[in-house]
């Protein structure tokens, strides 16, 4: 993706974030049970769906690395995991604020919350592993861990179905969602996905430059010795 197209995506993302904020606070109907607090939903759920996408990209490029052993795939997988972790952190921080109002507790060991925390810890482990190993081992082992960690994503998604949670609505349950709320949610979701794309491009480019720098530095050291 060239610089111009990245800038265009950036401008569209910024505009969509502004529009979504306007829609959340000025257009979407206020839900009748939780009233204004329900408006956390728009970015909480959008961030959750975006983290699925981010970790999906990580898994996909980890598999691609394992098959083709191209360094670029490893860099892209790591960049996606890092941004996925940011979205996961947002979900884990905004969730308890909502929970405090809805359930009168910051945290409970409910299936979806617990599996999301496990997912977050697994990707923290992914980065600890990457920082602890040498370049060649790092790429291989983190690709394997990337594939294994992704197994938790469907567990998070279907947690309410597997363990019959009462706190989060069951997947596939019928929602009485007003069209204004649905439109607002879709705009927030697209904004989150575009933001992910933008951050992914930026992080991938940085990682590529870092990798190139390391190669040049090693060459210099070799020449000097």
């Amino acid at each position: 993706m060239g610089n111009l197209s990245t800038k265009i995506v950036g401008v569209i993302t910024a505009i969509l974030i502004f529009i979504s904020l306007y829609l959340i606070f000025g257009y979407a109907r206020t839900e009748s049970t939780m009233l204004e607090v329900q408006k956390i939903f728009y970015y909480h759920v959008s961030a959750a769906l975006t983290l699925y996408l981010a970790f999906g990209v990580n898994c996909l490029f980890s598999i691609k690395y394992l098959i083709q052993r191209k360094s670029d795939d490893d860099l892209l997988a790591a960049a996606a995991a890092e941004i996925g972790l940011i979205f996961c952190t947002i979900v884990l921080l905004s969730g308890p604020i909502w929970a405090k109002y809805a359930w009168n507790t910051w945290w409970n060991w409910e299936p979806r919350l617990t599996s999301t925390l496990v997912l977050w810890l697994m990707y923290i482990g992914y980065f600890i592993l990457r920082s602890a190993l040498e370049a060649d081992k790092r790429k291989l082992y983190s690709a394997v861990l990337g594939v294994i960690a992704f197994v938790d994503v469907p567990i998070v998604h279907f947690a309410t179905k597997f363990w019959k949670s009462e706190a989060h609505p069951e997947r596939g349950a019928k929602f009485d969602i007003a069209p204004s709320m649905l439109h607002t949610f879709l705009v927030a979701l697209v904004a989150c996905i575009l933001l992910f794309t933008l951050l992914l491009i930026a992080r991938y480019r940085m990682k590529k430059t870092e990798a190139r720098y390391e190669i040049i530095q090693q060459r210099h050291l070799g020449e000097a010795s």
Partner: protein
Amino acid sequence: MKIIVFASFLVVLGVFIFATQVPVDITPDKVSAAVSEAISLSEVPVDEEVMEQAVKNAITILEKGQRTRLKYLAAAYIVIWLVFMLYVLRLGQQQQQLDQRLAQLEQTSVTVTSNQ
């Protein structure tokens, strides 16, 4: 980078002010007028003072509830903004460090070449 952070801070501040504003357009005068009107329409005798106090209490409870909910809402959006901003700032710092390291490396290679 600083401009982006400042601009997004202004946006979040705007959202915070917008979200925490309680749309109170029910003034005590309006309450008194509405209570008097309701009592005049009522067929049973009602104590106006008691009625007015009850309505004021109800409005206070509703406003307090709304203020609490808006605090939760604002807190969630501020947390989301903070996480993104900290990440973007960190990326900016890393990019700066990388540029410096690359410049140093280029300078070193120029010196080595000229010495040879």
